[in-house]
C-alpha cells in the first residue's frame, strides 16, 4: 500500500497579522464557516474511492489560517470524516496549527487530542509584547504560556513552536530572550523563520513609509539566525532543515514528505496537492470553492504535469533544504540516472565556491551555502530557451 499525506486548510483568522500573505480571511460570518466545513467534508469524502484500498495516510497537517479559531466541533468532525473516509495509519503524525489566543484551554486541547491530533504547532512568533502588537498578532506572551501548558496537560508530547525574526529595528535581545523561553518550555520542535515580507502586506507598506531599506536588514537578520541555530543546537535541538529544529525523533514527518517530494493531497481553499507527478491546487476564493464543491465535489483551479526535468529540479531544490541534503541513491533510483554525472559541472564549481559539500552518498549545502540556497539551487535549474 502506498503512503500519502493530507493537508487541510482552514482559511479563517480572528485577525490577519500585518506580515501575513497566506490565504486567510478575518471576520467571516459563522454561516460561511459552517458552509465551508460542510464543503470541506464533501471534498474529503469525494476522495474516498480514489485513495481507498491503495493508499494509507501517513501524516495529516491541519493548517491555516487559524484552525483553533473556529469552534472545536468543526475540527472534531473533520477528524471523524477523515477517519471514516481513509485508512489512517495507527502511528500517523497528525498536526494542528494553533494560535495562543484561539481555542487553547486545557479542555479545548483535550478535545483536539481525543479527536486524534497528536502534534500541536503553536505560533509564538515573538516573546516581545510590543513587537507582537506592532506586527498585528492578537496574542501576548502570557497567552502563549497558558496555551503551551494546556497542551502539555492535555497530553501533547510533540509540540512545535514557531518563531519569526528579522523585523525592522527588532530588539535583538528580546528575540534572544524568546529563544531562551522556548528552550525552557522543553518543546520537541522549533521552526525559526526569517521574515520574508510580501509586497502586498500592510506591514510592507508601513515599513516603506518609514523608509526602511529591505536589503540593509540582512546583517541583523543573519545575526539572529546564527544565534537561534547555535542556541537550539546547544540545547539538543538538531537542525534538520533550513528553518527547522527538533529533538531526536521529533522531526516533522509531514514536512519531510514535502522536502522528499512525496505525494500529498490538499483539501480546502488554496490547498496544494502533488500526485502522479502532477501539482494542482484549489481556488483561493471561498465563494468559488463553495460553488465548485457543490457542483463537482472538487475545486481544482490549475494542474501542472511535471516532466522529468522539472521533477528532477524539484527533487534537488527541495532536497537541498534538508541539512543532510539530497540522497544520491534515491535520486538515481527515482530517475534511473546518475546524479553525480548529471550535475558534475555544477557540483564541481559549487564545491569549489564552498557552497556545496558531498560524500558521494549525500549532497548538501555548506554552512555558508545555506544562506545562499537560492543561488545554489538556481544552478540546478535548466535554462529555458524561448
Amino acid at each position, binding site marked *: 500500500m502506498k503512503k500519502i499525506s493530507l*493537508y487541510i486548510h482552514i482559511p479563517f483568522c480572528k485577525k490577519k497579522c500585518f506580515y501575513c500573505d497566506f490565504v486567510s480571511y478575518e471576520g467571516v460570518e459563522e454561516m460561511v464557516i459552517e458552509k465551508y466545513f460542510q464543503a470541506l467534508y464533501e471534498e474529503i469524502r469525494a476522495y474516498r474511492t480514489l485513495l481507498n484500498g491503495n493508499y494509507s495516510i501517513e501524516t495529516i497537517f491541519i493548517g491555516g489560517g487559524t484552525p483553533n479559531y473556529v469552534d472545536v466541533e468543526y475540527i472534531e468532525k473533520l477528524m471523524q470524516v477523515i477517519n471514516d473516509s481513509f485508512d489512517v495509519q495507527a502511528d500517523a503524525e497528525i498536526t494542528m496549527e494553533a494560535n495562543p489566543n484561539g481555542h487553547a484551554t486545557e479542555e479545548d486541547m483535550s478535545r483536539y487530542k481525543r479527536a486524534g491530533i497528536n502534534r500541536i504547532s503553536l505560533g509564538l512568533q515573538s516573546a516581545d509584547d510590543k513587537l507582537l502588537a506592532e506586527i498585528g498578532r492578537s496574542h501576548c506572551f502570557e497567552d502563549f504560556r497558558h496555551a503551551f501548558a494546556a497542551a502539555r496537560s492535555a497530553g501533547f508530547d510533540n509540540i512545535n513552536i514557531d518563531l519569526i525574526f528579522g523585523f525592522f529595528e527588532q530588539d535583538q535581545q528580546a528575540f534572544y530572550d524568546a529563544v531562551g523561553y522556548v528552550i525552557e518550555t522543553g518543546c520537541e520542535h522549533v521552526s525559526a*523563520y*526569517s*521574515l*520574508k515580507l510580501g509586497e502586498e502586506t500592510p506591514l510592507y507598506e508601513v515599513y516603506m513609509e518609514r523608509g526602511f531599506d529591505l*536589503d540593509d536588514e*540582512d*546583517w541583523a*537578520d*543573519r545575526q539572529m*539566525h546564527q544565534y537561534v541555530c547555535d542556541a537550539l543546537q546547544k540545547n539538543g535541538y538538531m537542525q534538520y532543515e*533550513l*528553518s527547522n529544529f527538533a529533538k531526536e525523533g521529533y522531526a516533522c514527518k509531514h*514536512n519531510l514528505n*514535502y*522536502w522528499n517530494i512525496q505525494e*500529498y493531497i*490538499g483539501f480546502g481553499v*488554496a*490547498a*496544494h*496537492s*502533488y500526485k502522479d507527478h502532477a*501539482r494542482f*491546487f484549489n481556488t483561493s476564493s471561498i465563494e468559488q470553492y463553495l460553488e465548485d464543491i457543490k457542483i463537482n465535489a472538487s475545486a481544482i483551479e490549475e494542474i*501542472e504535469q511535471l516532466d522529468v526535468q*522539472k521533477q528532477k*529540479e*524539484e527533487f534537488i*531544490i*527541495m532536497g537541498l*533544504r534538508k541539512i543532510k541534503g539530497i540522497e544520491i541513491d534515491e535520486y538515481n533510483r527515482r530517475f534511473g540516472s546518475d546524479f553525480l554525472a548529471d550535475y558534475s559541472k555544477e557540483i564541481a564549481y559549487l564545491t569549489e565556491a564552498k557552497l556545496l559539500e558531498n560524500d558521494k552518498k549525500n549532497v548538501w549545502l555548506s554552512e555558508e551555502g*545555506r*544562506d*545562499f*540556497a*537560492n*543561488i545554489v*539551487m*538556481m544552478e540546478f*535549474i535548466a*535554462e*529555458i530557451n524561448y
Partner: protein
Amino acid sequence: MSDRQQRIRNFSIIAHIDHGKSTLADRLIEYTGSVDSRVMVSQLLDNMDLERERGITIKLQTIRLIYHADDGEEYYLNLIDTPGHVDFTYEVSRSLAACEGAVLVVDASQGIEAQTMANVYLALENDLEIIPVLNKIDLPSAEPERVLHEIEDVIGLDTTDTPMISAKEGTNIKDVLEAVVRRVPPPKGDKQNPLKALIFDSYYDSYRGVIVSIRVMDGQVKKDDRIKMMATGKSFDVDEVGIFLNGLHKMESLQPGDVGYLTASIKNIGDTAVGDTITFEKRPADAPLAGYKKVNPMVYCGIYPVDGAKYEDLKEALAKLNLNDASLLYQPETSAVLGFGFRCGFLGLLHMEIIQQRLEREYNLDIVATVPSVVYHVILTDGTMMEVDNPTNMPPVTNIQSMEEPIVQATIMLPTEYVGAVMELCQARRGVYLGMQYLEETRVVLEYDMPLNEIIYDFFDALKSRTKGYASLDYELKRYQKSELVKLDILLNLEIVDALSFIVHKEKSYERGRKIAEKLKGEIPRQMFEIPIQAAIGGKIIARETVKAMRKDVLSKCYGGDISRKRKLLEKQKEGKKKMRQIGKVQVPQEAFLSVLKLDE
C-alpha cells in the same frame, strides 16, 4: 545648349528635420504622376524603415519628374533628395553640387532652425538659386508673416512670391513646381567636352554591383565607355546608364545636365567615393570637379554581440551595412570583458545610433556598445603623432608628450528663455563662447567652440531636457587643439573593465569618475561578496563606491504550497543571470554599460 538641356531643372529640397521635406517630395511626385499611385508608399524617398520612423533621410534618393508647365513646355525636373542631418553634411554638400537650385522648406510655425541655416549655407556655397517655401500653413499655430520676415532678415532671401503650401493637405503644390521651372536656371555644360560627371551617391545591388548616382557636368557617357574615377584612380567599363524614373530606367546615354545612374560591374562601394569625378580613361578632363574630400569618421565605439556565439552574424551584418555605407568603418577588436567584437567608426552620433539600431532591428542582434570616443592626436616623446580612437590603445603616460582633441563649432538655436540654461550647459562642457545672434525677439543663435568629446556623451539629451526639446544643434569640425587629457579607468572588484575606459579632460575626470562609480553602484546587484567600484587615472584611485555584500538569498519557508512557485522563481532568477556579463567574478547586467553613457540627470 540643346533644347532638351534647356528644359532640365536639377534641384534639391532642404529643410530642418520635421519641417516636411519628405512629404513635399511625395506631393511633387504625386502631382506630376511620376510614380504609379498604387506603388506609392507614403514618403517614397525615405525608403528605410528607420528613416520613415524618425523622419530623417539617411540614404539619398533621386527621381525625375516630368512636368507640363504653364508655359506649355514639358520639363524634366530632377529631384535630388538630401540627407537631413548634421552627420551627413558632406553628402548633402555633394548632392547640392549636382543641382542648380534648392527648395528651402520652412515650417510656418517653427521658423528657421539650426539645420535650416546649415543647409542654406551649403546651398549658397554651391551657388544655388534658393526658393523659400512656407509649409504647414494649414496649422492653427502657423505664423506665415513672422516666418517670412525671419527668412528675409536672417537669410536675406527675397520672399516675394514665396509658395505657401501644406504638403500634408496637398495645397498649392503646383506653385512650387512653377517656381522651380521659372527660377532654377537650366544646367550648363557642353556635350563636346571630355566627360566630367559628379558622383553624389552610390548603393550596392546584389545583382548589378554598385549603382552610382551621377550628375553629368560636361561630355556624355554611354554603355561600353571606359571610365576612370579621378580621385580613386580606378577604371571600369560602363554596363548601363539611365535615369531614375519610377525605378531605374535605361537610356542610350547621359548628357550634360542629366542626373542619372551608371553601372560598371563595380564590386566595392569604396571605389565610388562621393564627390569624386568620373571621366574617360583615354580622354580625361583636365581637372576634376572641385570639392572632393575623403570623409573620416569622427566618432568611434566598440560593438559586441551580447551572445559571443553571434560574432559571425555581427560581422556579416556590418559587412552588409558597409556595402551601402562606405562611411561606416569597422575592424575586429577584442575586449577582455566583452570578448570578440568590432571597433566601428561613424560620421557622428546620429550615424552611430542609426547603425546600432539597424543592427538590432534589421539584423536582430543584441549588441553592447562601449563608451564612444573621438579621435585624439597623441604626440609621443619621440615627436611622432599617433591617432587614438580607442582608450585601450592609449600609450603609457610616460611616452606622451602632449595630446590634442577635436574642437567643433556648435550652432545652437533656441528660444531666448533657455539661453541661461544652455550657456551654463555649454560652459560646463568646456565650451568657448563665440557669439550670440538674435533671429527675432524670442529666438537666438548661440555659437560655441566645443570639444567634440563633450558632445558625444549625452549633450543632445542634456540640451533637449534643458530646453523642453526646443533647441536645435548643428556642429562641424573646426580644428585640433592641445588639451590636458587623461585616460580614466573603471575597476570592478580591482580589475580594469576595458569596455568602460575613456579619455576625458583632466578637470572633468574627478567628477565623471565619481558619477560613473555612483551610477554603477546602482546598476550592479549585490553579490555574495563586497564589490569595490573604483575610478582610476594611471594607478591613482580618484573615486570609490562599494556594492555591499549580499548576506543571504534563501527562502525561509517552503512547504507544500510553495514548491512550484519556488521552482518558477528560480527559473526567473536563472533567466536574469543569463543576461549578465561576467567580469572577473562579478555579474554585471547589460544596462550597466548603457548607464554610464547617460550621466546627466
